[in-house]
């Protein structure tokens, strides 16, 4: 069954059309890449899926639940996690708290229990601390749990952002340019890492990327966007040889 189905999604900013007619069917367990030049509407699509913007037209369904009209936290609670193009950590908070915050929807205690630290409060807090520390140790950040997020080096911040997204316990993970600012060596590691978390957490991944090496290396299917429209779609080999894509996007230089 398809996990995510977007049909005829359109979005306008004022009079400007950012996404013209976006269609996507994402099967459970797939790893799909979205590429396209700057301003092609890639990040807008993430914002539409996660409810930051409300699609002007069309429908986006997750496991047959309509997402258009839902708020970001409602959509996130349906197990959709994401990262951001320009890292958006809670910079002044601790590494641990960054991850703990993302457990919000999974923590089950009432405001009254929170105000009095009674009832389920203790058990639930212990549970999410344990889970947070587990995630941090997977990302080799456990020793930095008490550190302020903004003091982390760039690479660690990127990892922390993914850890935070996984704390949501997502089924669908949206990665917005995860390889931005990385050298080829780091990209190789990242590719392995993405494959690994996908298996480990049984994720369906949709990723936006400029680094062709990464997209071509790990994605099973690629969607090429230009000016809010789908230019081409298919497996990496087909995309690499598609004349339309070469002309519009890759025309200027060699792939990779």
């Amino acid at each position, binding site marked *: 069954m398809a996990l995510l189905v977007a049909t005829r999604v359109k979005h306008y900013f004022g009079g400007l059309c950012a996404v013209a007619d976006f269609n996507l069917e994402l099967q459970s367990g797939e790893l799909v890449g979205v590429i396209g030049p700057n301003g092609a509407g890639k990040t807008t699509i993430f914002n539409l899926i996660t409810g930051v913007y409300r699609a002007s037209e069309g429908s986006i369904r997750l496991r047959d639940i309509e997402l258009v009209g839902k*708020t970001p936290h409602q959509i996130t609670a349906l197990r959709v996690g994401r990262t951001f193009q320009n890292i958006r950590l809670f910079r002044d908070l601790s590494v641990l708290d960054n991850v703990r*915050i993302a457990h919000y929807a999974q923590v089950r*205690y009432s405001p009254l229990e929170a105000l009095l630290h009674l009832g389920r409060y203790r058990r639930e807090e212990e549970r999410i601390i344990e889970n947070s520390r587990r995630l941090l140790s997977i990302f080799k950040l456990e020793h930095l749990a008490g550190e302020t997020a903004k003091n982390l080096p760039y690479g660690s911040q990127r990892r922390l952002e993914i850890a935070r997204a996984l704390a949501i316990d997502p089924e669908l993970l949206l990665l917005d340019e995860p390889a931005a600012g990385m050298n080829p060596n780091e990209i190789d590691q990242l590719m392995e890492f993405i494959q690994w978390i996908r298996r480990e957490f049984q994720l369906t991944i949709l990723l936006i990327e400029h680094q062709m090496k990464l997209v071509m290396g790990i994605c099973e299917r690629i969607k090429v966007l230009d000016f809010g429209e789908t230019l081409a779609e298919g497996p990496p080999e087909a995309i690499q040889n598609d004349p339309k894509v070469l002309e519009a996007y890759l025309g200027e230089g060699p792939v990779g």
Partner: protein
Amino acid sequence: MKTMRNAGWEWLMAQRWLLPVLIAVGFVLAFAIPEYNLLNKYVQLVMMYVGINIILTVSLNLVNGYMGEFSLAHAGFMAVGAYTAALLTQKVLPVAAYPGLFPLAVLAGGLMAALLGLIVAVPSFKVRGDYLAIITLAFLMIVKSVIENIDYIGGPRGIPGIKRLTTLPWVFFWTVVSIWVVRNFVYSKYGRGVLSIREDEIASDLMSVNTRRVKFLAFMVSSFFAGIAGALFAHLLQFISPRVFDIIKTTDVLIMVYLGGIASIAGSIIGATVYTVLLELLRPSTVAAMLGWLPAVVFDPLNEYFIRHLGVWRMVIMPLALVLVMIFAPRGIMGLREFRWFIPRRDLDAHRRPTVHGGSHGAARSH
């Protein structure tokens, strides 16, 4: 030398059982001081003002410090609490016969204020920063204006002759309760939600935080305790009028919040205490009493010019102090740091390195 002092401090901070002991001792003192007149009436009065100001500061810090919004409505919530409680003790509840009903009136004041807090929370969904400041200010002005126009509650003349029911034990009790509840709130998923809203509201929403719910709760808790403080204030001052709760009152609390430090309970306690005591110390009579040992040649001219006008000049010095704090220490004395006894042990442990020797970083909390 330094390491020895640190070791001593470390040891002290590890003795968490001291906190409940201190609270118990505080309660005993709160009962004993008025009972046996251990301190003079004036000092007792200042202590009660310190307590009320701590309640106001801790509660405003929740919205303005932890959440990073900018609300000017605090005096409005205080007014609602004060008027509700005063009307109850004056006209409804037979407190003269049953003084035990006083806490009910205080509680009702807090609940009324919390109800209004819910309304003020709504605009904070859409706007923040300057615009929220304006909306909350408009709210404060409207509360004041409504009170002025209802004759039944005294209109602009206010309510005189309120019974003096606020006592040192009650102030101490509510101060402890407000600190405890706000601390519990901060160290819960809602409190972390509040912090994440200050950091990045959109990211917070995308990390599953129900930002509206969190804002509702934060405004409710904050305004509830502002109402409690207002009720206690009314039954201490024994007179309230709309003019008591104007923008100047809010500004007082703002100064205490930002002086003590944003997003810190310890900071709120320090800010409220330092500011209240400092203002009292700068009273002309106090300064004159303190400088009384000076020879007459020095004291008399001082008394003539400086001390006599101090009443006004202290209100000149205080806002200047606030501006200087903002420029040189924008987060205040304890900004974003916490006294370790206030942090739940679970949170402290969770932030430690996984090594055997728990790495600890002074009294500072990591966020």
